[in-house]
């Protein structure tokens, strides 16, 4: 599969639209275990990204993703800003000077993004964070690819794993971020960061399906 600049822009625009749609839901999830601003903050950040994209639309994919990362860092605030910002910056660094990507490049960019989040947040799987969505999704993607699956199938499996990972945060005890001050009271709530990460993985899946549909039509 060949992923061009246009599809990267489409991915970012669609993520922004999905976050805007789900803004109230994300903020509601953030009320019992955070400070009720996850949807608002991410919507502000991705709206700024959408406003900035036309200025880099003719640049390489690395530049587009790094600009996205810097914009998120500058506009989201809180901890989601540095976390998602670092994720896009790291993915952009892996894809410097590239105008189209092969399947392996997408996997490498996702791995770099996850490593960036884990470094910035000093967090591991099982701590009720966005990592609990992203780590199993990337593992599923890689093992499907290793088993010979095409990218569409592998991303479908990643999306399923992402959803299960997100749901698995419900019974978890939060040990990172503001939710951790709640101790046992954090149990029973789905993590808002794991949820926004799931939205991004679903959008990635939709874009990959579209590219495949276009290629076969």
């Amino acid at each position: 599969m060949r992923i061009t600049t246009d599809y990267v822009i489409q991915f970012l625009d669609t993520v922004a639209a999905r976050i805007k749609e789900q803004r109230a839901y994300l903020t509601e999830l953030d009320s019992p275990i955070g400070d009720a601003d996850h949807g608002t903050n991410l919507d502000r950040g991705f709206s700024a990204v959408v406003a900035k994209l036309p200025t880099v639309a003719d640049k390489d994919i690395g530049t587009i993703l790094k600009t996205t990362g810097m914009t998120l860092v500058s506009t989201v605030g809180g901890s989601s800003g540095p976390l998602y910002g670092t994720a896009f910056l790291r993915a952009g660094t892996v894809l410097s000077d590239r105008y189209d990507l092969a399947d392996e490049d997408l996997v490498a960019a996702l791995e770099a993004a996850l490593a960036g989040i884990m470094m910035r947040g000093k967090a591991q799987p099982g701590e009720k964070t966005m990592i609990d969505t992203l780590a199993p999704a990337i593992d599923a993607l890689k093992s499907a690819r290793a088993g010979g699956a095409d990218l569409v199938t592998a991303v479908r499996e990643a999306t399923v794993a992402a959803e299960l990972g997100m749901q698995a945060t419900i019974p978890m005890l939060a040990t990172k971020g503001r939710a951790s001050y709640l101790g046992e009271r954090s149990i029973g709530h789905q993590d808002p960061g794991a949820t926004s990460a799931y939205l991004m993985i679903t959008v990635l899946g939709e874009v990959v399906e579209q590219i495949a549909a276009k290629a076969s039509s």
Partner: protein
Amino acid sequence: MVVLTMKKLINSPESLVRDALEGMAAAHSDLIRVHFDPDFVVRSDAPVHGKVSLVSGGGSGHEPLHGGFVGRGMLHAACPGAIFTSPVPDQMLAATKAVDGGAGVLHIVKNYTGDIMNFEMAAELAQAEGIEIASVVINDDVAVQDSLYTAGRRGVGATVLVEKICGAAAEAGMSLAEVKRIGEKVNAAARSMGMALTSCTVPAAGKPTFELGPAEMEIGIGIHGEPGRKRLPLASAHDILGMLAGAVLDDLPFERGDEVLAFVNGMGGTPLIELYIVYNELVKVCAARGITLSRNLVGSYITSLEMAGTSLTLMKLDDELRRLWDEPVHTAALTWGM
């Protein structure tokens, strides 16, 4: 027309941080300037050449922290975020560049996940531009008990003490490493705990952060309305101070013969007369325990919007810390000796 559903002296939730910063700039033009986009408050005489500079910052809603402590003998710049939300690295980087006098910049960071990550990114960016950066993380809140399973103890009252004492150290011409050492020493010698009689309302949310019944209080709150250790029936100032002092004194621990600085802080909605009642109770507790209260600060210096309540910070003093505390300071919120 903006329809307001809460009783606050604001024009709109969207404009309130900027409106307040503009007012601060107008009120204290002799001490500070305010830079907008990115937002930061900076000493009017910055950069001070050849001396270490101090930059702090955090969510708004804790005034006078941090902007009210910008001036001679304390901070060189402060970065205000949205209400209760960490500022972003652009602000910290711009403030750091504005105050760098060539001797390095110390970032004073309260231990909250967002603040830590944003200051880390700012430090990486500033270092990439050739500015020497060190940081001190404040984590004095004893209400967070099990720090292995949490983001760690929060930075609360000791922040004011670190900013004052490091400010004096920087003014005296100490090196970046020395000013950092002093900041860490203050943090290690200080412990705090707070309590709330009422919740507070973040303007953008429009409703109280948590619900507290008319006869209830929350012991061990943070400065963003985070939950505390426990919810109890309302009690007297004597009993409340007893709980706070007990937790604070036993944690370090402070012992018979120690000399301490006591900081009795109002959370934003508590009148000064009540803070003096709390201080009076503290005097009795310390007398009974053989602890000497040799310096004090009583007033609302690190707040949580209009929350009623108090926090107690105690710091063990030695000659070095006492001398630096007594050095002159001239800021919007704290002034003595000049």
